[in-house]
Every structure is written in C-alpha cells, then in structure tokens.
C-alpha cells in the first residue's frame, strides 16, 4: 500500500510540474525576457527573496576559507572568487589561476590521479601538495565563467539532443554528440561533463579548496531558483523523457557527501551557505548584448556564412524563450592540436563542449587551457570539426575578420572589459585610502601613477613575454588583498625550495629556489631539480603588501643599522642582522630582506614572478642597486626586452607612491596599546617607527632586519645572506588587512601569529602569553587598528 501511495505522490508531482511547465509558453520564438544584465548582477526575473539569496551567495563566493574552517588539507585557492573574478565575480580568470588536470594514462585509458584528477598546489601540513607518482599526463585548464549558467541549466534535454549528429549524417563535417552525467545530458564544464550546478559547485569547492559539503536536502533542492525537484522526479524524468520537460536535470547532483581527513567536522560548508552559493550561480545574469551596428551586423552575417553557427548555434530554446548563448552544449572533435587527452564521461581527448559566446569580449583568455589571448587567436586555434570554419575565417579579408570579432565583442560585456581586473575608468583612490598615493597627484605625476597602476593590474599575454615559468601573469595577480597593491591570500603563495646536504647545510639549487606554479607550455613538466628528493625542503611564502614601499625606501641605511645586534651584545636574546647584498647595499624588502629598493623590487618581481625580460638598467638608473635584478633575456621566443624602460619606471613610480595604510587615531587608547606592545617585547623587532633622512617618523613597526624566529626544528629556504631560518621583521602597518599571517600564512589570527614566534621572539611570545585576558585583547585590538 505504501508503495502505491508513493507512486501516486510521484505521479501527482509529475502532473503538477507538467501543469506548471505547460503554463509557460514553450514555443516562444523570442529571446527570453529578463535574462540579461550587467555581468555580476542577478537576472531581473529573480524575486526579492532570491536576490537576497544571490547577495548572500556572492559573500560565500568571496569568503576566504581558513584552515580552521576546513581549508585543505589540499588546496589551490582559498576562495571561490579566486578563479571566478573576470571581469567581475562569477566570471573567469587570467592564466595565474590555470590549474592542472592530472591522470595516469594506461593502455588507452585515462585514470584521474591526485584529488579527483585535479592537481592541488598546496597542502596545509606538507606546504606543497606532492605530485602523485602515478601521474603521467597533465592538461591545463583555465577557469570557466558562470554568467547565464542557470539559463543553460533550464534548457530541456531534447533541445540539446535535437542537434546531435554523432555520425555526421548530414555530411556537413560537424557531428556533435551529448555528454552524460548520471544519465542526464551534460551541459557544464569544458567537456559538458556535468549536468547539475550543485555538482559544479561542490566538486571544485572540494577539489580546489578542500572544503567538504553534503548534498542539498530534497527540501532545499526544491527551493533553488532553477527548478530542481528531488531525485524522485529526476528518476521519473529519466523514464518519461518524452513527456516531462527536462528542467529537472538539476536534481542529478552528485549525491555523495564529500568528506576529508582534516580535523574540521564535515560538512565544512553549511547547507545554507551551499544553497546560497548555488543560488548565486544559478541567478547570474547573461551578459547583455550590445545593439548591432553596421560592423557587428556584417560580422554576424559572416559568422553565419562561414558556419561558425554549426556549433555556436545562436540560441537554444528554453522554458523562458530563446537563450542566445551561441552554443549547442554538445561535444565536438576539435582536432589534435587542441586535444588534451582528458576523458570525461563519454568525451575523448579531442572533444570539447561548444563554449557559450555571450560575454566573450570580457572573459579571456580563451579555449579550455586559455592558450588564446585574443578572439582571433582562439578562432585560428580551432581544428577538427571546426577546421572548415577556421579556414574560411582565415580566408576573409582583414576588415571582414574585424567585423566577425566586432560581432563577438557585441555579445555582451564589452563595457566591462578590462585588461586586468580594474573596471574601465576606475577612479584614483584618495591619499587617505588604501591603494591611494602618498599625496594628491597632479599632471604628469598623476598620469604616471595611473599608468603604473594600469600596468600593475593588466595581464601580460603570451606574445608579450609571459615567462616560460611564472607565478602570476600580472602584479595584481598576487597583490590584491584587500585592494590592488596589497597582500595575497594563501592561494597565491610562492613556493621556494632547496636542499640540505648530509651535514645539514643548505644547498641552493642550480636553477634557483623558485618553484614556479605555472608554465607557459600547455602541459607542465616537473620544475624541480632531480636531486635527491629526500634532501629537498620547501617553503611557502605569502605575498607581502606593498603599501608604503616608497616610504620604507626613504629610511637611511644607518637608521636600519642602528638596531643591528648580530652578536647579541646587549644579551636580550634578540640579534637583528642587516641583509647586506653583494653590491654592498642593504636589502629591506621581501621576507628575506633581499631586495634593496622599489626599482629592484619591480625588476625582481617582473622577472621572477611573471617571467618578463627587462631593459638594461643603465637605461634607467646606471648607478642604482637595480642592476643586480631582472632578467635581460630568456628563450620564450619573444623579442627581449619584453618590457620597455618607461613601463618599468611607471610601475616603480606607482609602487613608490603607494601610501602606507592609514594610520590609527592617536590618543590614550593608542598609547596604552603601544605601551603593552613595548612591554611585551614585540617592539624589539617590530620597532614602531624608523626615521627618514629628514627625521620624519615612518610608523611601519619593523626594524627591517633579519631575525631567527623559527621553531627549533624548522628548515626553510635560504636567500642570499639570509639563512634558512631568518626572516625580515615584517611591517605591521595595515596588518588587519593581510591575514593570514607569518611567511607561510599558517596563522589565521594575530594571536596565533604571535604564538607561532620562536627563538629570538620566544621571550616576547611568553610575555604575551603571560598577559591577562583583558590585556591580550587590548593588545590585539591595538594591532588590528594599525
């Protein structure tokens, strides 16, 4: 009896859904209403309640997860927005967010290795996530934008299947076949390997951030903004595909709870937060297309004439009307050049989903691995079934090609297109704001600062010299927390490595200590030195904020040296060693105080982190310390130098002019906190201020010296004269904006950071621990206000 009752309930549901489904006019030939918007906004048909959910979801997407909240143990990023930021939250990302799919290729099969076939870069315990020894194949992926995906989720399966032509029966050279996910037609991912947005959120959340989640309950699923009834209806849909519209495919989310082995109870993401996040993704508006002008209209015609529309079909019919995403959501063989060897679902290595083109103007780089910086490059990289269209495009005149590109640019987002992440025409921050200049700038200086800012923000393209190895494809890629010029979260940590010989002496690798996260080539080769792995050691280093760089540069050397006490002559247990560089100049920037000036910092970072070659220093500053920094040439095939002298100067100027974080208000509370800070002993190294040549105080809370504050058994990576245990005292100004703390970012709070101090800082740490709870809070609040 129970069975029959449940059967009746199911049938009732089907009829109710049919009823609701039929009340929409499914035969609309017009573009669906309310689906477009500014990228990053919600669809206009969202209810007020859904819009609130959307905003909460955006917060979840931007939330930086900490180890205490479940980050890791493996991770690539600390928040979802890391990879979905271009041109705004919910979009794609530059090459610095590329990730690797890894597998063991064995007798023609592809077996995912590492974490569900994703290679994490970092590990909360082991710092660097080891490459699975079984991995013998890697493929690069560039993050995929989410705009309008909720609308694609609603496309009925039969609409997608109606365009499948797997054996190419019509003989047009274009076949197209569906991928499947748990029995439903796939539509998301580079290979259409996923059908549900819940799955497309939960999977990457775990694979890239190590955040576990449980599936949404049936009740929650039913509340999602895109119809997502429970699995019961999904099941019936499976049985009755010819009757029931396939809007229920959302229900085919991976059902399994995702758990991990860290100490944080699973699920690490609450059901409410997961619901908000999925709702955000589902409600993201499709990019609003521009009205066609003469050029883009001509381009549109050409787009059809050369049969790009064979795969990039202008619109699919959804329950709201036509959805002009310019995709058929089917798999197509794109030829050997694009093939990545990755098999997902029924997709083989050369098959990819037709990428939606809405918003394509603002969501580069293009293709699955981001190999194309421009739309023209992307078109010319097409092969396989698209070879005919590609050849026809190449045969067009230059003007005609421009028309096609103009048409593509018109498909939404052109107003939001940025060379980096700063929205077009972003005003200059004020001098008292984070990211603003030291003082009001005008005229040429203002223009130079803005040019430097734009250079800092903009991505370096492959044909502009992005390095064979690189950590970021722009300065902003690492320095963006909380605003451009700031610090970077753990997901952009730099990995350094080296060796210890059998006597325990640090040995520098012949190729340098940098283990870059990315490579220019499509697949990654192991960048490590093949020396005995048992002796290898890694160190991760956080991205420091650059605010006040120019002010620190103005501290005279003698002011720094005055605090030096290498032999601990005052016997306070604190030494403090200046890092004198081979040129004889003092280093003062970086975790190892290995960089002497803003100019040197610019050159070092451009070459070491981005892989750019630079002009001879003599062209800029013949006598400067910069001469020791920056690569003059490399073998990436791009003409050296890849950066012009004027660009280097503008960039340096921008960093020199970045103001220190706004100073806290002075008064009794400040003085009281400062007194505690000094009493505890923090101020021995975190010297509250240094003076510039004019005697003005620079309240940076650092002596700019090297200290050993590492745990007794710590083995790090040496740099120059700085031993593997020494670190420069980091300035504390603006510290509230730069969590997590310490060089490795393992200290989530200031208190944990203090407790992570050892050796020279052991006394100060013990003094802090001996404070009363009230005093501790007072001190920590004071530090947070710096």
């Amino acid at each position, binding site marked *: 009896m129970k*069975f*029959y009752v449940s059967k009746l309930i*199911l049938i009732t549901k089907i*009829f109710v859904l049919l*009823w609701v489904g039929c009340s929409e006019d499914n035969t609309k030939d017009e573009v669906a209403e309310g689906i477009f918007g500014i990228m990053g906004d919600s669809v206009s048909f969202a209810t007020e309640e859904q819009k609130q959910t959307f905003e909460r979801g955006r917060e979840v997407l931007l939330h930086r997860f900490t180890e205490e909240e479940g980050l890791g143990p493996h991770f690539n990023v600390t928040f979802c927005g890391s990879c979905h930021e271009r041109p705004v939250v919910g979009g794609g990302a530059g090459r610095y967010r590329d990730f690797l799919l890894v597998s063991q290729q064995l007798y023609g099969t592809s077996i995912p290795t590492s974490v569900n076939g994703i290679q994490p870069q970092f590990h909360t315990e082991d710092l660097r996530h080891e490459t699975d020894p079984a991995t013998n194949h890697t493929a690069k992926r560039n993050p995929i934008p989410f705009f309008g995906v909720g609308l694609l989720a609603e496309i009925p399966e039969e609409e997608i299947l109606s365009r499948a032509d797997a054996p190419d029966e019509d003989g047009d050279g274009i076949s197209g076949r569906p991928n*499947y996910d748990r029995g*439903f037609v796939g539509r998301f991912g580079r290979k259409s390997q996923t059908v549900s947005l819940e799955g497309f959120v939960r999977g990457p959340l775990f694979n890239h951030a190590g955040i576990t989640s449980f599936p949404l309950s049936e009740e929650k699923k039913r509340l999602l903004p895109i119809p997502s009834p429970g699995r019961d209806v999904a099941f019936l849909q499976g049985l009755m595909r010819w009757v029931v519209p396939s809007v229920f495919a959302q229900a085919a989310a991976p059902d*399994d709870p995702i758990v991990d082995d860290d100490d944080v109870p699973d699920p690490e993401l609450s059901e409410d937060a997961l619901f908000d996040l999925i709702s955000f993704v589902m409600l993201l508006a499709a990019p609003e297309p521009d009205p066609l002008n003469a050029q883009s209209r001509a381009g549109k015609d050409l787009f059809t004439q050369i049969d790009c529309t064979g795969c990039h079909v202008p619109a699919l019919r959804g329950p709201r009307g036509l959805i002009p995403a310019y995709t058929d959501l089917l798999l197509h063989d794109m030829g050997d050049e694009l093939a990545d060897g990755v098999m997902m679902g029924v997709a083989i290595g050369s098959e990819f989903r037709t990428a939606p083109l809405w918003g394509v103007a603002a969501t580069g780089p293009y293709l699955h691995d981001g190999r194309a910086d421009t739309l023209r490059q992307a078109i010319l990289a097409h092969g396989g079934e698209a070879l005919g269209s590609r050849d026809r495009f190449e045969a067009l005149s230059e003007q005609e090609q421009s028309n096609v590109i103009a048409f593509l640019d018109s498909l939404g987002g052109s107003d939001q297109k940025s060379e980096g992440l700063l929205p077009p025409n972003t005003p200059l921050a004020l001098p008292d704001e984070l990211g603003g200049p030291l003082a009001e700038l005008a005229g040429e200086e203002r223009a130079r600062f803005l040019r430097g800012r734009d250079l800092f923000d903009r991505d370096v393209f492959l044909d502009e010299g992005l390095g064979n190895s690189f950590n970021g494809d722009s300065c902003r890629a690492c320095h963006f927390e909380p605003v451009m010029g700031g610090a970077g979260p753990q997901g952009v940590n730099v990995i350094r490595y080296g060796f210890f010989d059998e006597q325990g002496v640090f040995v520098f690798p012949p190729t340098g200590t940098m283990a870059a996260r990315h490579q220019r080539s499509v697949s990654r080769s192991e960048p490590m030195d093949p020396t005995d792995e048992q002796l290898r050691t890694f160190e991760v280093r956080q991205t420091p904020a650059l605010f006040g760089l120019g002010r620190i540069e103005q501290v005279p050397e003698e002011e720094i040296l005055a605090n030096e006490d290498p032999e601990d002559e005052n016997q306070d247990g604190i030494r403090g060693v200046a890092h004198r560089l081979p040129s004889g100049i003092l280093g003062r920037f970086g975790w190892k105080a290995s960089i002497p000036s803003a100019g040197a910092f610019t050159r070092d970072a451009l070459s070491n982190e981005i892989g750019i070659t630079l002009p001879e220093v003599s062209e800029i500053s013949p006598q400067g310390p910069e001469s020791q920094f920056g690569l003059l040439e490399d073998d990436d095939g791009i003409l050296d130098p890849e950066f012009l002298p004027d660009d280097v100067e503008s960039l340096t100027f921008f960093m020199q002019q970045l103001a220190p974080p706004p100073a806290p208000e002075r008064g009794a509370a400040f003085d009281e906190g400062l007194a505690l800070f000094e009493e505890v002993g923090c101020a021995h190294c975190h010297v509250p201020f240094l003076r510039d040549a004019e005697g003005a105080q620079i309240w940076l809370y650092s002596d700019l010296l090297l200290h050993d504050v590492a745990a007794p058994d710590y083995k790090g990576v040496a740099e120059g004269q700085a031993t593997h245990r020494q670190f420069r005292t980091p300035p504390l100004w603006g510290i509230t904006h730069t969590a997590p703390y310490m060089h490795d970012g393992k200290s989530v709070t200031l208190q944990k950071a203090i407790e992570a101090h050892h050796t020279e800082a052991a006394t100060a740490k013990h003094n802090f621990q001996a404070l009363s709870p009230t005093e501790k809070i007072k001190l920590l609040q004071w530090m947070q206000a710096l």
Partner: protein
Amino acid sequence: MGDFLKVFLFYTWVICGLFVFGGCGGSPSDPDEAKRWAPIESLNQSVWWMNAFGLHDVLFVVGGTPEEGKLMQKSGDEWREVTLPESVPLLNWGHALGDGSVFVVGNSGSVALFDQEWMLLQTPTDQNLWGVWGAAKNDVWAVGGSGRVGGEAVILHWDGRSWSKIDFPALERANVFAFFKVWGFDRDDVYVVGQRGAVLHFDGDQWQEIFVDTGEDLISLWGAVSMDNSEKIMVMVGGRSNGVVVVGRNGEFQTRSVAPLPGLNGVWMNARREVWVAGLFGTLARINLETFEFVREEVSSFRTLHSVFGIGMDYKITVGGNLENVEGPFEGIGMENIP
C-alpha cells in the same frame, strides 16, 4: 495553457490516481502486469539492502546500516530475519554454494559462514569487504578495501579453516584502494574487479592484472558458460557517473559507456545469457551483449539499486537503498519480479 488542456490534465490525473489505487486491492488483470517489478513489502525499509543472492530455491538478502548488518532469508513466500551469533556491521555481499554453505561479508572485515549453523569467522583485515565468491566450501575468495587514500585493497582466501590475506602483484594501475567484487567460472578462472577499472585474474596459481580499457570503477561482475562449454562470457559493470559495461568472451574484452544509463552497481546473467544491470536512480535494465543496447525496466523507485539477481529463468530480485545518505536516515528497497 488553454483551459481545455488543464481540464484534460486534471482528469488524466484523477484517472491515473484511480488506476493506481485500483491496483492496491487485488491481482492485476493485465497479464503483463504480472511481469512487472513489485516491492517486497516484508523487507525492512529502514535499512539498506546491498545484495540478493542464493542458489536453487534458497534466497538471501544482506544489508543493514553502517553499524548493524542484516540478513534475511526467503522461505517459501516469506522473508525472515536470520540472527547471527554476534552483531556485525553492514553486510555487503553473499555467496551460496551448492553444498548448502553460505558466506556473507561486510564492513570492517566481517565474514559470516553458514555451515549447519551461522558462525562468524576471523579475518586478517579490518577493511570493508565488498564481494565474496567461492568454488567450493574450502576455496572461497573475499575482496574489499576502503577505496580511499590510506586504505588498502585486499584479497582474502578461505581454505576451509582460516582466512588469509593473499599477495597479488603490484598493480600497474595506480591508486587502487578497493576491490569490489569477485566471481569465477571455476577455481582456476577467477576474476576480481575494483576501483579505477582494476581487474585481476586468477588462473589457479597466481593473480595477474589485466586491462579492460576503462579507468572507471568496476563495481560488479557475473559470468556464464555457453551450453556447449565453448564460450565463457563475463560481464563487468560500473561507472560512478555514466554506466560502463565490459563484456569478456574467452578472455577478450570489449568496453562501452552505456550512457545515458547512469553508474551501475549490479549485474546478473541467466543461463540464456540475458543480462540485467542495476544502478543509480533506480536504474534497472537489460543489456544486449552484442550491441550494448539496453532496455530499461521500470521499478518505480529512484533509490540506488545495488544488486540484481535471479533464480532460474523467471524469478528476479533487485535491492538497494539511499546508499548516498551515509548519515541516515536509511532507506532500503527490494523489488522482485515473479512470474
């Protein structure tokens, strides 16, 4: 939507509801109705059912919850619970031998044997055991593993007196942390399937890794020998997202994705070499071994089906549950197809 259509749908709904309720009271009048799958009401629906197995007229189902295993036996038309000497965790699979002995295996290395009476056997593993098969009462294999990094894929052998862990060659296929099922044509022709498409073959002397052209998890397998003994057919199924079917004929294997059938957990083949498979979302289907085409059979359930089994040519049973819901509440399902 027009009023006419709404009225039409409403009355269709009413008629349909009456039809369904009408089915509650007595035997169906449609002869085809008799061949449909019907729920086994007497099976506890608050636990998972992992496997149905048996021999001749003896039929068992095993399952339970992660903490407590359950074993049911069918006697005539009635199902009765079998009480084991001690509590065991979830029971995953079973195998009945011609001499009347029965082996069941479960989580944390649990094994129970019926040989005149039920007894629990000590095993040298605490890994979950997912499959068991034997050629004889003193020649039984059990396989298992956690399936997670840090776990261990294990093969155990029972020689009539004790279980021992069997060494097998290091697999070329990496990261195999579980074997899921074992099945053999004879004592010297035994197959094991497992994680990431792992397949091992035992020739009576040693285990050897073989490759069947898939990296998908292979969850279950079944075989049959042709009447003239000229052909041994082996069917392996699996896939976590899309269904995968591997058909072996005398050791030569062909592998296909059978999408849109979703991931498959169970397979059974009768003497006519008709094959049924069971899987996600209440998937039950017959597979054509020549073409890999399939025909779904309606079981009116969206629960995961974990096993399908039959006795003779006509009786078939499939069991499963909300296996994804590891935290509970647990829901189980058993359906049978009785002529």
